[in-house]
């Protein structure tokens, strides 16, 4: 949904013919107030201001009011309540359990995804080309499937009565998994959700990291081999340091995405996640649209944004550095 969701967030390679210093000098010398670029940028700025900046401000205002359904219909200004919404939320044990759950899920799912993604990327380097092509094609398909669809697929596979997963586990001698409900126990339910998120996330991670691996200088590896380094030493001392910036970026992105987990839970829990399945995103949504507590939902959203800012600041810095190159 965000641009950062996209496979091509990073800009294409900077042109080799980026303006050289003399060019810049010339541009600087003939600089005068330029209206053309501002006019070009106006439509974009107007749209961003109207549909992103304004709602953002509105959300902030709303979080200090108490908006009810009747205000929505009458258009009357809701009463101001100061920090009451925040007080309600921050003193609510349920909210903190949601925060804790979201944080734990994020750490666990991102760790598993990154380790597996790196493992698959390294594996891609080691296999024969035929197997590698099969791996890439499979991952492309998985990557291309919309989140909502993959959530539906998993829902079907773990279905208590007709799901293929129960059937396959049931085949193991001595195990009875017929009609087993995967969501009755939240731990099992979260294992399913995490598996889905990791499964859908691996293609992006593995293909990105594999592309990064191809940039590791071959002579460095050969030198390490000649010096008698073990594969583990090569990985630790040569490959990982070169991959570091890339790993930092994909980890940050994964944290942002998984922290905002919504779709998978929403679809797997029939659009009404139980208490044990709420994440910050579904919780804010349920408060706002399920119970028409728009102000409470706004306050939760504001807190979520603040929580995410730490991670995002880091990402902005990375993106900005890339953007400054040309």
């Amino acid at each position, binding site marked *: 949904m965000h641009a950062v969701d996209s496979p091509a967030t990073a800009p294409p390679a900077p042109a080799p013919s980026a303006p050289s210093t003399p060019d810049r000098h010339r541009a600087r010398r003939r600089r005068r107030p330029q209206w053309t670029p501002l006019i070009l940028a106006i439509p974009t700025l107007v749209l961003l201001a109207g549909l992103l900046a304004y709602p953002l401000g509105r959300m902030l205002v709303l979080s200090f009011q108490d908006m009810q359904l009747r205000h929505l219909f009458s258009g009357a200004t809701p009463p101001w309540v100061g920090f009451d919404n925040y007080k309600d939320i921050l003193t609510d044990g349920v909210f903190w359990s949601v925060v804790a759950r979201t944080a734990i899920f994020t750490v666990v799912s991102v760790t598993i995804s990154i380790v597996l993604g790196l493992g698959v990327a390294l594996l891609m380097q080691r296999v024969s080309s035929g197997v590698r092509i099969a791996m890439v094609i499979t991952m492309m398909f998985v990557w291309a499937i919309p989140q909502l669809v993959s959530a539906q697929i998993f829902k079907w596979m773990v279905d208590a009565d007709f799901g293929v997963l129960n059937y396959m586990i049931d085949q193991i001698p001595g195990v009875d998994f017929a009609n087993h409900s995967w969501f009755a126990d939240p731990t099992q339910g979260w294992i399913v959700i995490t598996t889905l998120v990791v499964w859908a996330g691996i293609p992006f991670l593995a293909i990105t990291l594999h592309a990064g691996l191809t940039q590791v200088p071959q002579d460095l590896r050969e030198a390490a081999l000649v010096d008698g380094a073990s594969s583990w030493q090569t990985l630790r001392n040569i490959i990982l340091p070169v991959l570091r910036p890339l790993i930092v970026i994909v980890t940050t992105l994964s944290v942002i995405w998984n922290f905002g987990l919504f779709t998978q839970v929403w679809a797997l829990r029939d659009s009404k996640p139980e208490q044990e399945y709420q994440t910050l995103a579904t919780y804010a949504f349920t408060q706002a*649209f399920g119970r028409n507590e728009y102000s409470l939902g706004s306050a939760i959203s504001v807190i979520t944004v603040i929580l995410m800012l730490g991670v995002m600041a880091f990402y902005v810095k990375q993106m900005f550095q890339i*953007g400054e190159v040309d």
Partner: protein
Amino acid sequence: MSTPRSQRSRAGTVAANTVGVLFVIVMAFPVYWVLNTAFKPASEVLSFTPSFWPENPTLDNFRSAIKAPFFLVDLRNGLIITTTAVAGAIVVGFLAALAIARFRFYGRRALIMVVLGVQLVPLLALLIPLYLMLNRANLTNSLVGVSITYLVLILPYTVWTLRGFIAAVPRELDEAALVDGCSRWQTFYRIILPLTGPGLVATSIYGFIQAWNEFIIINTLNNPETQNLMAWLLQNQTNRGTAWGPLMAGALITSLPVVVFFLAIQRNIAVGLTAGAVKG
């Protein structure tokens, strides 16, 4: 010395290939399972012993998905919304990208900051004010409201990506054209636009995928008759109980455009991802 190593490495390759094939099977299984289900008759879908191959393959599920309430309406809605949003974002975004890539002006850095910064606002957080805003403007339950929302959704990324494509066109070409007596407009029309053509296509496809996949906004703002297929998939499941066969057929149809576009652009993906990142 070299013989044992190559032998060890051959054994290693066999082991690696085995793991690789296992990986492919595990990863591909869910995809296979949709295909398998979508072509099974209802009796086979709801059998307690799942069959790993449709024994009597049928297109019934596709037929009943297409005949299901709102399926075709929502398919058409999705196409209209997505096309409008992408076309709008490309036109508006190209202008801003041109400004960033080709002009050094006061406020350029600020513009870049804005374009990058807004991408980081979690969309879901904006849903409440967006809903209130569009509700007041009478734009809920309309395709216009969602189209504009999606346009803005893909706009920052459109600007940023197009900026890269424009920057890749050598400035010398612009300058040569200007020297040869072209106006600014002609330079744009004859040099930059044709040379960024492939970039425009790639960017539109990404935008299409983003807009096509979105469902939370449209599901919140609109009724079933003004939703898209994603929202249909969700509603279909909750309102009528789960008819798995038609649902999987619907899921296949819904993801088809994305899969096709995705495979079309897959060559550019790795390049786009690592550019700058590794060197940065």
